[in-house]
């Protein structure tokens, strides 16, 4: 198993900069997700690690080996990197049986027939496909094909596994199941995993650390908990979970003034260094307390949606609309006047 170090990676496609200033150190055996909206550069980065795309500048180091360095004119071909890869559309070869698909990397390594046989049997049982060896891919379901792809990527004992949105073609229930299976496989094998996804729930459940990306740049690299609880910027706060953004003005070292069109409210918050004047206050729906009388800010319930375990409110505070989530014990009907208190807020620059 190996560490992966990406140092100052930049990738241009013609005039378009797909990825820039990408620097991340991934530890041995770590599970790291690249998370971001489509077109943010996450797949491009993955393909550069795999060796399918060449960085415009920057270095890629896997374990002790420098795999790609523009400055030193080094570029290892994909087949020289000992990386396992699982593709979004599985990429299971339709003209080979399940057995032949999984055995292919061993065949390339010229492993003896009986060793191949044993290893394939083992990995078939590892991914729960015992007895499927002689089938052809078109006889398998999507989930089974994805297992074949996983087994094929794992059989060569790769130092690193790259997974490119491997679950996005599966249905919701299977997707949830496969999350845990992939996590289990990693625990059993100890392989370093880099996982590309646009699904925040997927990244949250599986990752040790998440690299949040947008428009080619890294926004934040942290554990799922840190990213949710301490988003580094407006983009991360908005992309991970739900949040309300309200324009405000910094008036002292721990207070902002919130104007709602009809009046203004003072809110205590931590003001990060470098922010002054106009700013954006971010408050998550579950961090707003709602009560009939007790609170600083007055509002009117405009819509309630019953979600079973909780109620999703829209509350008008002047011209500002806030989204609030609260358990279903006490219900505030539409049109009723309520009072709000912010339990936890973040301040970002405009």
């Amino acid at each position, binding site marked *: 198993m190996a560490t992966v170090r990406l140092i100052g990676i930049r990738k241009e496609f013609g005039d378009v900069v797909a990825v820039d200033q990408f620097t991340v150190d991934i530890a041995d055996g770590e599970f790291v997700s690249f998370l971001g909206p489509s077109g943010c550069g996450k797949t491009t980065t993955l393909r550069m690690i795999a060796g399918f795309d060449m960085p415009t500048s920057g270095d890629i180091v896997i374990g002790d080996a420098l795999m790609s360095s523009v400055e030193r004119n080094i570029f290892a071909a994909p087949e020289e990197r000992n990386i396992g*890869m699982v593709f979004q559309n599985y*990429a299971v070869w339709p003209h080979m049986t399940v057995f032949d698909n999984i055995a*292919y990397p061993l065949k390339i390594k010229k492993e003896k027939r009986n060793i191949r046989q044993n290893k394939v049997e083992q990995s078939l049982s590892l991914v729960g496909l015992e007895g499927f060896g002689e089938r052809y891919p078109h006889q398998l379901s999507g989930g089974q094909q994805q297992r074949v792809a996983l087994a094929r990527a794992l059989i060569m004992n790769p130092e690193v596994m790259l997974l490119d949105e491997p679950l996005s073609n599966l249905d919701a229930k299977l997707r949830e199941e496969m999350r845990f299976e992939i996590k289990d496989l990693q625990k059993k094998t100890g392989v370093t995993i880099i996982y590309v996804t646009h699904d925040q729930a997927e990244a949250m459940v599986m990752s040790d650390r998440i690299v949040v990306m947008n428009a080619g740049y890294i926004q934040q690299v942290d554990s799922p908990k840190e990213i949710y609880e301490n988003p580094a910027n407006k983009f991360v706060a908005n992309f991970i979970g739900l949040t309300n953004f309200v324009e405000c003005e910094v008036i002292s070292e721990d207070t902002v003034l919130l104007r709602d069109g009809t009046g203004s409210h003072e809110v205590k918050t931590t003001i990060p260094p470098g922010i002054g004047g106009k700013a954006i206050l971010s408050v998550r729906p579950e961090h707003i307390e709602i009560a009939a009388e007790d609170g600083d800010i007055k509002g009117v319930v405009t819509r309630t949606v019953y979600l079973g375990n909780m109620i999703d409110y829209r509350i008008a505070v002047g011209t500002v609309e806030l989204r609030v989530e609260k358990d279903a014990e006490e219900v505030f009907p539409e049109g009723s006047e309520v009072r709000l208190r912010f339990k936890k807020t973040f301040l970002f620059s405009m």
Partner: protein
Amino acid sequence: MGVPALLLILVVAFPISLIFVQGILSEEGTLTLGFLQRIFEVRSNYMSLMNTLTISLLTVFFTVLIGCPLAWLVTRTDMPLKGFFKTLFIIPYMIPPFIGAIAWGFLLSPRTGFINKWFMGLFDSTIPLFNLYSYWGVVLVMSLYFYPYVFITVAGALERMDPSLEEAARSSGSGRFRVARDITLPLVAPSITAGALLVFIAACSNFGIPALIGTEGRIYVLTTRIFYYIYSGGFEGLQMASSLSIFLVITSALALLANRWYLRKKQFTIIAGKSMRPNLVLLGKYRIPFFIGCCLFIIATMVAPLLCIVLISLLKAYGVAIEWKNFTLANYKFILFEYELTRASIWNSIKLSLTAATVLTVVGSLIAYIIVRTKLTGRRILEFLSTLPYSIPGTVLAIGMILAFSGKFGINLYNTIWILLIAYTARYMAFAVKSVGASLEQVHMSLEEAARISGAGWTKTFRDIVVPLVRPGLIAAWFLGFMPMLRELTVSVLLFGPETRTIGVAVYEFQDAGYYDSAAALATCVLIVIFAGNFLMKRITGGAFGF
């Protein structure tokens, strides 16, 4: 259902089955295996069968050899201008093979061909560089006009193939060439054989090339042999022609079955759903050499022969020196305004093509609708019958028409324009059914259902919803029929009468009789109409059809 079915039975099933009946019946009406005897006892018949087989197989070999590398170059490398080349490599597909044969005759005929004359002058030799009027001459010209079948199918497969299939193999540790051998080639193989099959059938059924090149060198194939027997006339000739036709059908049917058998286990799709970034091979220092190679190929195989036809059409007489004072438009004036025979044949072809294209668009659309949209029993038979006349050689269809409509069964259309009209419509029906069917499949059923819910009846729905939505398919159907009919030769040459010559027949007769300048002028007109028609079709259908 009833009307198109009856129509197809009358003009397709009945004539074609007559060929088999004719082949196994003696003059007295008893059952025999005479057709076998007639082939194997007459040496020249047997030779023509063998020539058909070997020439077609060699053509398949060379077209695969040409088509696959070209397809790879334009889809998978960083060669300059590859999009432009992709269009250019398809051009031979649009050029009628018999016009190609004429063009190559101008270049490589043993005594008067430009290249041979130049070669013999250069080395003061009396032996030509290459005698086109030979076995290999037929193979050469066929290969150059049929390789687009392989090129189109293979390029399509390489373009649609999911690149991650190859990337997965790279990640598994195999190098570029190993990936080509283990993954790419096996996945493209079905497309190669599909292209090869089309070439084989096209080569077996072709009449123009062996008639204009082979006959001169006494090389006969089944189609030219059948032509010979029809011209020799009488019951005997017709019987011989029918017997040879049976072999022609069997040959192409066997090829079809062989391909089915090969594909039986390969029921896989390699088409990816998402947008793709194909893995381009960087040619590096070979980039420019490959580019130059492609340019030379285009110049040698397309520019030179076509230029040659245009040049000769503009000369005062065939064989005079190429100088400004020898250029003239007299040939065009002659064929278009002066010579009654060509004027009549142009008029005939236009009349026939306009009428037949319109008929087949209407009937073909109905058949396509029945096949795609209904669950009527027998619609598969309808599909089979509508595509059959194009899957069998044109020569065979023509023999069927002669047998069915020359008076023996109460209808005598022989030597009239009607027999040509029926034959043309039947022959190109498949195009209309396919293109309208493809457009119909794009139109989701719910669009029609929405019209029904809104209160429109079946006919109103058909007129207001279906027809506008499949318009590109309808236009394509018309053009795809009209353009090949305008210059049709294989069927016409067996069915035309004194009053019903067509353009194809006129070009063929000019060339056969040695009026090369008139042949060239008429052929140039045909080429202009074809290219203009293709351009027009592409514009009207918004690029959905045409090249």
